[in-house]
Structures are given as structure tokens and as C-alpha cells.
């Protein structure tokens, strides 16, 4: 349904061109939940903001191709893009506390979106708002529809934001860290809601997150990004069973294990993500990677089989040994 090919987003800056997203290609299928994982600055948000055409920094340069249902979105005039945004592709953002305009009721804001894309009466738009609020599990939707954002809790606001995103039955929902700003108990409810969306509305979802736990909960496929590039992608089961990229190992190690001996302390990835101004010429993760060798001075391409691709030069044997050795390491620490 959505095909992104060779997406490259760079920003002109005082220090030259900063490349935030470099040669990123991915597909999203109908009714699929794709998890995009990576730490801050890995380009996950930027790449999906460009799908929405929401990068309006005059210094941004966007190259590549973004095809949605057979239609090229890059280079589409804003006027036409507006009919895609909110109607075909909807987006929810990280912080529900600031994502809603403070001076209007949530019902008004949902109805506004309905009225923008559909020729319906105000009364019908309001009725739709009530219906959506009840669908996302807000109690007393008839009353809540007239509430202002500040009168709702964070979880309720995120539900309202989701209700708004769903108002025009989008085929694709982009969720940018929808649970990061919420309490853990509320997080689970929101994730459940996102899964319910696919069941009830048939939407595909791109879930941006830095939390492998969230991915394990809801995603079908996972794509790991680092320094603006995709380093590994696979079905969820494959990523958790046999991750191939050392960076993915690092991410998985940062989740506390549920069973087995309790590690003394969680392992972290040494070092800092590289500055986008000064990326290593070869593998961007190379300088932080325990397993790097001569060849890592070249840039690895995404390769693999059975839908499991990774951008790493380690041979399958070396990889298996390193993955097994890592487990031993973990035991040794505890």
C-alpha cells in the first residue's frame, strides 16, 4: 500500500548538509502493523513525517520516492497533499498534552477534521465525534465531547487524539511514540486500542517507538533504524529469536529479562550515537560495535533472505557465535 524507495532527507545547515535519513526504503502492506525502532535522532520520525509531507523547514531537502496506493506523494502540491493528510493517512504524536489546541473542545477538534474531508452537516460531524470517542473507550462520550483538553488526563487525551486520527477512516495510521508520555498502565490500554483499530477499522499502522517491549506487544514486522539508516528488518518473531545486527542485540539487551537469573545491571550500548554531521564512512554503528572488523570501514548494504535483512558484514557463523557468546556474557555478569 505504501512504498518508500531511496528516501533521503537532509537539512542545509551552517556546517553543510546534514543527512537525517539516508537511503531508506520500506513497504507497508494492508492491515499490517510495522514497528520502527531506534533511539532519538535515528531518523524514524523524520522519515515518516516526510510521508505526511509535514516537513516544512525551508532548509530541508527530500529525495527519493514515496508511493501511496499508486500515487507519488513527494512533490505533490500542498493543496493535493491536504486531501491525503488526515483522510487517507493520519498521524498521532508523542505528547498528547500538547497535541491538541488548548482553546477548543475535543469534540470540536474531531468535528473539524470530519468537516474538512467530508460534506456532512455540523450535527452529523458532532455525532461522529461522539461515536469515535466511544469507540476509543472514553467514558461518557456525550459529555466528554464538550470537554477541553486540559480537563482530560494524559491517557484520555491520547485517546481523543487517536479518535481524531481515525475520524476519516484512514487506511494508514502513523503513530509516533504514542505511549512514551503515558503511565505504564495506560500504555498497555493504548497499545490494545491500536491493535483493536486494525481489527475494527482495517487500518495499517506504522508504530514509531524506541521501546522494544512495545514492538514485541503489537508489531507484525519490525524495522530497526540507526543514524538515519535501516540496519535490520524482519518479522517480529525473527527479530526476537535471531536478531542479526549488533545494534539490535544492544536494543534487546536493554530489556530486563522476565525469567532466569536477574542481571546485576542491564547492559547498555557503549558510546553515543554519531553526530549526523560527521558520520563514519563505513557502517555508522562501527565505532560502537564490539564485533567490528576491517571490512566495517565500508558501508554495508541491507541483505538477507526470507524477509529478514540486515546491514552487517558479520558472516552467519561469526554472528551465531557472537550471539551465543553474548548470552554467556550476560550470565557471567549476573
Amino acid at each position, binding site marked *: 500500500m505504501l512504498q518508500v524507495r531511496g528516501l533521503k532527507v537532509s537539512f542545509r545547515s551552517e556546517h553543510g548538509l546534514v543527512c537525517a535519513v539516508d537511503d531508506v526504503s520500506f513497504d507497508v502492506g494492508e492491515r499490517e502493523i510495522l514497528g520502527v525502532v531506534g533511539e532519538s535522532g535515528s531518523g524514524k520520525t523524520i522519515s515518516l513525517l516526510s510521508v505526511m509531507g*509535514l516537513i516544512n523547514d525551508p532548509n530541508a531537502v527530500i529525495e527519493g520516492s514515496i508511493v501511496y496506493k499508486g500515487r507519488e506523494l513527494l512533490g505533490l502540491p500542498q493543496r493535493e497533499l*491536504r*486531501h491525503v*493528510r488526515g483522510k487517507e493517512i493520519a*498521524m498521532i504524536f508523542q*505528547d498528547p498534552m500538547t*497535541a491538541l*489546541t488548548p482553546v477548543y473542545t475535543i469534540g470540536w477538534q474531531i468535528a473539524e477534521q470530519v468537516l*474538512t474531508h467530508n460534506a456532512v452537516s455540523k450535527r452529523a460531524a458532532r455525532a461522529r465525534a461522539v461515536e469515535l470517542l466511544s469507540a476509543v473507550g472514553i467514558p461518557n462520550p456525550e459529555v466528554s465531547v464538550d470537554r477541553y483538553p486540559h480537563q482530560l488526563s494524559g491517557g484520555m487525551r491520547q485517546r481523543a*487524539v487517536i479518535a481524531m486520527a481515525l475520524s476519516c477512516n484512514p487506511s494508514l495510521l502513523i503513530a509516533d511514540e504514542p505511549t512514551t508520555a503515558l503511565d505504564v498502565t495506560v500504555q498497555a490500554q493504548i497499545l490494545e486500542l491500536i491493535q483493536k483499530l486494525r481489527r475494527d477499522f482495517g487500518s495499517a499502522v506504522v508504530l514509531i517507538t524506541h521501546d522494544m517491549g512495545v514492538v514485541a506487544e503489537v508489531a507484525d514486522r519490525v524495522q530497526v533504524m540507526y543514524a538515519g539508516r535501516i540496519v535490520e528488518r524482519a518479522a517480529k518473531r525473527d527479530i526476537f529469536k535471531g536478531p542479526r545486527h549488533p545494534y539490535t542485540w544492544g536494543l534487546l539487551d536493554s530489556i530486563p529479562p522476565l525469567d532466569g537469573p536477574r542481571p546485576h545491571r542491564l547492559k547498555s550500548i557503549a558510546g553515543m550515537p554519531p553526530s549526523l554531521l560527521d558520520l563514519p564512512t563505513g557502517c555508522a554503528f562501527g565505532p560502537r560495535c564490539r564485533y567490528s572488523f576491517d571490512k566495517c570501514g565500508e558501508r554495508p548494504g541491507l541483505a538477507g533472505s526470507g524477509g529478514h535483512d540486515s546491514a552487517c558484514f558479520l558472516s552467519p557463523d561469526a554472528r551465531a557465535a557472537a550471539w551465543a557468546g553474548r548470552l554467556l556474557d550476560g550470565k557471567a555478569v549476573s
Partner: protein
Amino acid sequence: MLGTIVKRLGQMLFVMFGISVLVFLIFFATPGADPAARIAGRNASPETLAAVRKDFGFDRPLPVQYALMMERLFITQDLTSFVNRGWKVVPAVLDVAPVTLSLVVGAAILWVVGGVAIGLVAAATRGSVLDRTLMMLGLIGVSMPVYWLGEVMNLITQSRFHGTWLFSWVPPLGYKPLTSDPAGWFLTLVIPWVTLATLYMGLYGRVLRANLVEAGQEDYIRTARAKGLSETRILVRHALRTSLITIVTLFGLDFGALVGGAALLTEVVFGLQGIGKLTYDALRSLDLPVIMATVMYASFFVVIANAAVDLLYVVLDPRIRKA
């Protein structure tokens, strides 16, 4: 809601009482500001001074003097000037109030509409030549002193180009009452309105643009864009709506001060006998009853304007409603 309004009115009365006491003390209890000496004139003999003191009641205790003045100002309304004996103060203030009100209200409409339009257009075309031109014009407007601009306007419209078709409609300086001569009222005030509004228009335009640009960084603007709304709708319904609070605050302060007499320079330049001119003349002759009356009138408007601003906040921002 009613409770809030009543509370607000109580506060207003209290503030006005405080102002009246303060002004009274400044003119009666400050050393060297003996009103009797002013009234009696230079080189007055001690006997004359004593007579004046007795005559005007300056020999009585201060609280009594204050109470008497307030009674004559608000209740009997027969307070007379110390300088022009027999000149009743309250009617004098009420006579000139319409002049200042006409000047300031007209200018306020101009500058609010103009300022908001400038701010919106500049923010919408941010970084363009139009934006820079508007901001530069705004800065020029803010920088021009109103008395200078007023004199230049007079020079152009009253003398140099008065003969041309462009300004032949401009009547001579002065004020024509709205009730007896509406057309004259309007025509005489057009140039003063434009002059007074120029400064504020530039100021409001620049402030609003800055606010709109700042609001553009907010998450909810990104949400609005993600909803597929048009840029105009995002700017007006989302960004402008949340930026209005600043403009309303500014407006309350400026409007109150101008109606209260801060439009003095404009009044003088255009020969309008307004409240500013009245206050200025009273201050020069230390005519305490007139000062008292004009100050009370001015404080009334400042306080009213601020109360109106507070009420507008409640309308504009639902987050304030709870408190």
C-alpha cells in the same frame, strides 16, 4: 460567573479608592506643594494666605478635607476649580470626555484591525519580501513620535497639499460633536485617528507576528496540519486564536491609558480639547479639584479596561475558566 463580576467590581472600587487617596496626599501632604500658596499667588502676605486657607478649607484636618472633596466630587458634584472660581469640575470633565473617547475609540478600531492584518499577513508569508517590508514599516511606525507625525500630517493636509484634490476635504483643526455634526466629526478625526493608530498598528503587527511564528512551533499546529486543514484555517483558527491573549492584554493597557489622558500629545497637535489637555492644564496651575476629577476619570477607564480584559481572557482561554 456573577460572583466573579461582583468580586471584580469590588476590586475596581478598592483600586480607585487607593488611587484617590494617593493623589490627594501627593498634592496636599507633600512639602512644598501647599495649594494655598499657589492660589494666593507669589508674594502674598501671610494674612492673605491665611484667608485663602480658611476660604478653601485647607486649615481643616487632611481626612476631613479628603472626605469633603470626595463628597463634592461624587455626591453633590458641585466641586469647583481652585483657579477659575465657580467653574464646576465634573461637567468640565464630562464635556471633554467625548473628544478623547472619539479620538481613542476610532484609532483603536484602526490599529487593532490593521495590526492584526499586518501580523497575519507577515506570519503567513514569513521570510518573504512582503513580510520584511511590513515589519520594516511597522518598525518605522513605532519609531515615529506621535507629535512629530501629527505635525507632519498637519503640514501636508492643512497647508502644503490642502489645495489638491487629495486633502481638500480635510476640515480645519478642532472637534465637531458627533451629535450635532456627524460628517464633520468624522472628517476632523480621520487624520488624528490615522496618526495615533500608526504607532500602535506597527507595535501590534510586530508583536502578533512574533506570537504567531512562535505558535507555529507548537505541537497542536503540527496536529492541525496532519489533520489536512488549509494553511489559512490553521493560521486563523488555531495559531491566531491562541495568540490573541497577548494582543488583548496589550490592548487593555493601551486603551485604558489613552482614554485616561495619555493621548495628550495627539490632542494638542490636532487642537482637540480632550481629557489629556484638561489634565495637563490643571497640573500646570495645580488646580487640585480638576486634577482629582481627571485622575479619578482616568483610573476609572484603566480599571474598567483591565476588568474587561480579564473577562475576555475567560472567553478566550478555557483553562482560566476553572479558577
